[in-house]
């Protein structure tokens, strides 16, 4: 049996300037590990870099030729960030203008994380990627919805995150398998959140805002400013 090589493009749609501060980047790293282990050829695209460095056209061409694309991004006001919408809208235009068709039976997956603890609020963002997939003629695989995004950087290797990390790998391994087998039928979405009390997470986050403001020379009450009152 000959091994057919597959190529996946991992797209990070976080608007953050420094990718090492992006939670999505961490998930993309885990995806890369999973895909490489499965023998899949991996390409990576950072949406902000692609736009600022003016290399969207070559990136779009790469995307159109891939066997699969995974879009990983943060939830912004309950849907996709503006920068990712710009990237996807222009991609659709690119395909139409160049009269290009995407790779046959291309698969698309979505990995969405949010700051609030509840993973299920990412559902609409996953549906947007599904709608996009349908409109460009790709097959949507499934979505991974991650709550408590603010926790992952710096804790991912901590013992209490072991189960969560395993769930992430399990989802990404499932994607790898679907890509290799060119599995056509969609799967159920996954919901993942850190094994951590909700109240404590919110409490810690609130403290974090105050301490960040203090580092910027502000007092707690400054956080409540109302600059636009006439």
């Amino acid at each position, binding site marked *: 049996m000959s091994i057919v090589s597959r190529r996946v493009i991992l797209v990070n749609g976080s608007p953050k300037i420094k990718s090492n501060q992006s939670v999505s980047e961490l998930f993309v790293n885990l995806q890369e590990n999973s895909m490489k282990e499965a023998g899949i050829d991996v390409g990576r695209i950072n949406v902000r870099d692609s736009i600022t460095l003016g290399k969207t056209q070559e990136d779009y061409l790469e995307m159109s030729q891939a066997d699969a694309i995974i879009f990983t991004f943060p939830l*912004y006001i309950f849907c996709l960030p503006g920068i990712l919408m710009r990237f996807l809208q222009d991609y659709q235009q690119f395909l139409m203008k160049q009269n290009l068709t995407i790779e046959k039976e291309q698969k698309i997956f979505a990995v969405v994380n949010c700051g609030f603890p*509840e993973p299920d*609020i990412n559902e*609409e963002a996953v*549906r947007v990627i599904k*709608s996009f997939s349908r409109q460009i003629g790709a097959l949507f695989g499934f979505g991974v919805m991650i709550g408590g995004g603010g926790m992952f950087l710096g804790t991912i290797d901590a013992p209490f995150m072991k189960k969560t990390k395993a769930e992430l790998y399990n989802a990404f391994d499932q994607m790898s398998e679907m890509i290799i087998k060119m599995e056509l039928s969609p799967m159920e979405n996954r919901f993942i959140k850190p094994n951590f009390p909700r109240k404590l997470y919110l409490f810690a986050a609130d403290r974090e*805002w105050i301490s960040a403001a203090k580092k910027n020379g502000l007092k707690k009450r400054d*956080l*409540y400013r109302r600059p636009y009152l006439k």
Partner: protein
Amino acid sequence: MKALILIDKEYQTDIYEQLHNTIKDYFEQKKFELDEIKIGKEDLAFCMGCFGCWVKKPGECVIDDTMSQINHKFINSDVVICLSPLVFGQFSANIKNALDRWLPNVLPFFITRPDGSTMHPSRYKSYPRQIVIAYAEDIKDEDAELVVDIVKKHRRSMDVIVYKNSQAKLLESLNNIDMMRVGDEL
């Protein structure tokens, strides 16, 4: 009474023209003072996800562009109407850029709403009534349902209308909305 209309420069289609005229007439008849902002591809920087609007310059985006003017007008309007192209079931890129950069208008902290969901507390005591009107040449049912879920599932004080060419339906929907400022429940 002041109404602010946000418009995407990129999708100036026939259906947009019809919609825009209807909206303008509607609010002019109601004696609103109208203001319009057209947002194009090069007009607004993308949000950088830095949270500077919460912890550096509370209430204002740290990027110096027309967004501060838009947010100022937003807070001081009675009604804000967002005419958004419906793209993949959500707001178009230009409109979404403005919505992302609306974040300074809430506080960073977390609250738990009566239904158990998380939200940020309001920064201001009251807000304009917000109405999203989504339009496109050809709207799939799934996309229409999706934009309604995006707006209605998570927010208590924002309305959404999907415009499918029917002026009568649009007017009926508008007539069902209280055209005045709302409180601080987001």
